[in-house]
């Protein structure tokens, strides 16, 4: 139940979007590494002997943030304005990716996934209605725990989610 053929145009679009980011972040990494190397000696010296020198600290912070953003881009093919996560459906071998920042909220997410996987998906807000839907939407958070989607505010969900899975309802 719920097995569906994915849209080929969406797949192509997804592939096209991810490639340029990969190339871009590769170049950015080299530049950032050089910049960081220059800062590290001065910063180390300052921290050992001055402790709370705010000025030097701010400089280090800026470099660190650049590195962190770069890591995010490289690891997850995300840049400012997009946040792609993997989606798998139980029983369907082919996974998808979805840009959570392009969605307006939970209803938009559910509608999109219902369409992508040709499924009828349950989430937290609907659970109380004793829905007859056969699948439930779950997400792995940054601690690796699988949680049902929809219990927390959308913004908090975005800060926790690492990947999505559409599980069979009777297994969760």
């Amino acid at each position, binding site marked *: 139940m719920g097995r569906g053929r994915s849209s080929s145009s969406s797949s192509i679009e997804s592939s096209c979007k991810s490639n340029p980011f990969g190339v871009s972040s590769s170049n950015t990494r080299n530049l950032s590494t050089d910049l960081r*190397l220059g800062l590290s000696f001065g*910063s180390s010296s300052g*921290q050992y002997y001055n402790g709370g020198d705010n000025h030097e600290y701010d400089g280090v*912070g800026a470099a*660190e*943030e650049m590195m*962190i953003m770069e890591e995010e881009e490289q690891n997850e093919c995300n840049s400012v304005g997009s946040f792609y996560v993997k989606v798998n459906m139980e029983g369907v071998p082919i996974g998808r990716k979805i840009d959570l920042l392009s969605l307006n909220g939970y209803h938009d997410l559910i509608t999109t996934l219902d369409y992508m996987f040709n499924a009828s998906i349950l989430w937290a807000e609907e659970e109380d209605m004793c829905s007859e839907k056969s699948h439930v939407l779950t997400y792995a958070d940054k601690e690796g725990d699988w949680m049902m989607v929809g219990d*927390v505010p959308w913004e908090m969900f975005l800060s926790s989610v690492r990947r999505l899975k559409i599980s069979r309802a009777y297994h*969760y």
Partner: protein
Amino acid sequence: MYCSDPPHPLHLVASDKQQKDHKLILSWKKPTMDSDPLGVFPNSPKYHPYYSQTTEFGGVIDLGLSLRTIQHEIYHSSGQRYCSNEGYRRKWGYVKVTMDGLVVGRKVCVLDHGSYSTLAHQLEDMFGMQSVSGLRLFQMESEFCLVYRDEEGLWRNAGDVPWNEFIESVERLRITRRNDAVLPF
């Protein structure tokens, strides 16, 4: 200190999973460094595992950069845990709830409730269908009991302390069968 002494493998996992929190961590580095500028030295026994991690990630990194990275990772390690727990609970009031035997957990906002009974109602709505007779938490004849992990990492029986104390210390909830709960304590 628990937060500052993670096992080697756990650190790798935690570090990898919590990259999104790095920006939040930066705001914590300053007070830590100001209040304890010599904090790096007591941690010197951890230099070797961190150094190994650094070299594994790329031979290009020279000694100076490696040394710098080591210090950052030490702060990140403790900062991550502190921010992860305190920040989220204070800001949102949400805690995770899991039921023994179920893979998928839920989240509840303890600040939305004013007593144990309303919390029990919400958990009944979330997990009640897993049992033919429902959860009936806090009732004598129930086969389930609610336990929580407090700020010290200890699991305690919910309902023993006044509600206001409970919401101050709860970090995670777990619905367990009554006979199972006896064993760990």
